[in-house]
């Protein structure tokens, strides 16, 4: 097994891990405010297709990312209207949003299948210039990858060190208590959903504009559900989410490594690792684990009439 192949494997793991981390962070923010978004897969798809379409039309990948961010936020606003204003069931609303995303992304991306775009520019990792050219070419990442971990830290800071974050967490634990202490649970949930959608939008944009550099229907292939699993795995905590995303990327890298070194392990069985591991962790932690989940998760805020 050559060092070059090893580097290639790690590089692709980093790419898929970055999209996942953004999506996970987005889901953490909305779940911290008490809203489960099962439609994350659909949000990712719509932002991936919108971002790709805008990049293809304008030739500017940054505009594409911006469009994807807005698309992600708007998708979450649909969910917000249903579950916050109309007090609809969160699981059903999320699944409906997922199907909406399947359809809408196919419609948006229809004219752009096979289109060529200029993706986000890739910048060399500092210090890699001394390496041979082949190696260095694998160590070039786009800006969103460099930003992924700082963004996770920023989200942690936002949730745990600011007044707004305290409000989000309070609403997620008990909207009535938050209301009694002068917060506006509905507004805060909308804000959290918008931020969550925007982050998912970055994840979707990274997938289509920076990583794959094309659009295919259903290109997320379950990434949204992995993110939802990772939210639980990371205890609704942005910093643990970094570890969760690393674990997943590690599993991907591991599976590619095994394949390239000729060991026959089915990639499909290796892909189950993140899910099974999350379930095992939940079982090991038992009911204590529940203490980590926002207590108001899935609850409808009835308000005072």
């Amino acid at each position, binding site marked *: 097994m050559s060092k070059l192949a090893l580097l290639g494997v790690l590089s692709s793991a980093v790419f898929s891990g970055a999209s996942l981390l953004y999506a996970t962070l987005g889901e953490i923010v909305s779940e911290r405010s008490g809203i489960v978004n*099962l439609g994350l897969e659909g949000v990712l798809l719509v932002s991936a297709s919108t971002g790709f379409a805008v990049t293809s039309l304008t030739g500017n990948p940054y505009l594409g990312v911006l469009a994807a961010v807005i698309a992600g936020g708007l998708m979450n606003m649909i969910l917000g209207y*249903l579950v916050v204003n109309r007090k*609809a069931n969160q699981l059903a609303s999320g699944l409906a*949003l997922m199907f909406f995303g399947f*359809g809408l992304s196919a419609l948006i991306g229809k004219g752009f299948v096979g289109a060529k775009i200029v993706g986000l520019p890739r910048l060399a990792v500092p210090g890699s210039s001394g390496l041979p050219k082949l190696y260095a070419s694998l160590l070039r990442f786009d800006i969103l990858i460099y930003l992924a971990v700082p963004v996770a830290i920023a989200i942690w800071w936002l949730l745990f060190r600011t007044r707004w974050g305290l409000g989000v967490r309070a609403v997620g634990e008990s909207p009535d208590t938050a209301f009694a202490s002068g917060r506006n649970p509905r507004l805060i949930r909308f804000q959290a959903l918008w931020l969550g959608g925007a982050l998912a939008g970055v994840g979707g944009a990274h997938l289509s504009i920076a990583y794959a550099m094309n659009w295919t*229907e259903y290109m997320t292939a379950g990434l949204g559900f992995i993110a939802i699993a990772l939210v639980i795995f990371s205890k609704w905590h942005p910093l643990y989410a970094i570890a969760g995303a690393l674990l997943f990327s590690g599993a991907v890298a591991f599976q590619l490594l095994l394949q390239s070194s000729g060991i026959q392990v*089915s990639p499909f069985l290796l892909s189950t690792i993140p899910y099974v591991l999350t379930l095992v962790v*939940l*079982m090991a932690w038992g009911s204590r684990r529940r203490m980590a989940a926002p207590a108001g998760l899935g609850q409808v805020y009835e308000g005072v009439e």
Partner: protein
Amino acid sequence: MGNTPGRRGAAAFWASLAQISIRYGGVFLLGFGLFGLILLISGSNPIDSYRDIFVSTLGSRYGLSEVLVAMTPLLLTALAVALPSRIGLINVGGEGQMYMGACLATWAALTFGGLPGWFLLPIMVLLGMIGGAAWAAVPGVLRARGIVSETISTLLLNPVAPMIVAFFVFGYWHSPMDTNKTPIFSASARLPTLFGTRISLGLILGLALLAVFWFVMRSTRWGLEMRGLGWNHQAGRLNGIPNRKYVIVVMCLGGAIAGLAGMVLVSGYYGVLLANFSRGIGFMGFLVSWLANGSPIGIVVTSFVVAIILTGGNLLQLTRDLPYSVINILLAMTLFVVLARPSFTRKKAES
């Protein structure tokens, strides 16, 4: 508590059927209107598209039969959600349970393909149900012991099942020609079809199971105990209803029904096991059951309407040059409209 069977029951049945039809009619119209708007924006003529959808589905004997074909798995995956929901369990794992059912049933079809149908099909049905039940048993036990909520565990197990199916299909079962599907099942491993159409025996199975579900919930001790647990777990337990046992058994039964849906799909519809044969039918079952508030009649009506939408999508793809998934927008639009009116389910739940 005494439900008087007989005439009052029948009258209430028709009244509720009429009520459901009228309410849903209005809602679906609004959903269709919203989708028409999207079609218009994307440059298709919505009126023509709708004419296509309805003429192709309700306008002919063949179209109607195709709707019933699409409805078959939905009936089962919806029941797989409705049954556990009666005791307050949320089964979001229909998708995975369906894949496992299809997986085990396919194993029997490929291994014992030479056996006669009257012997092989019951084995496949049984294995399909065992596959689904096994996949639901883990969440059931974890919930009964208070370790992990069944919502989370069923959700986590969903994506695992298709990967297991892919493992077997790509690794061992694939036909010499294709890598992503098995060889075509032998004739004895195919569910018989009815009236010279593609409607399989699965439709009858689904309707029969819904009738059994309705009868059990209404007129048996089990139904009474389950309703009791659904209303109030604590009170049910204090009245001596075996809470844990019900949670595990009902969860497994729900999984078994979803597994049956998988078996019906591979044996009655495809005749092969495709690595990713379902993209969301399990989730759609959740939505159907939720829209119908778990009522058997509601499930039949709702899955019929959803089946019209899904079947119409095929034609939209052919004649309007739109991707098939676009039909999901119409489905979602109608769902959004229903979801935005929570009075729908809430009133029914209270009555």
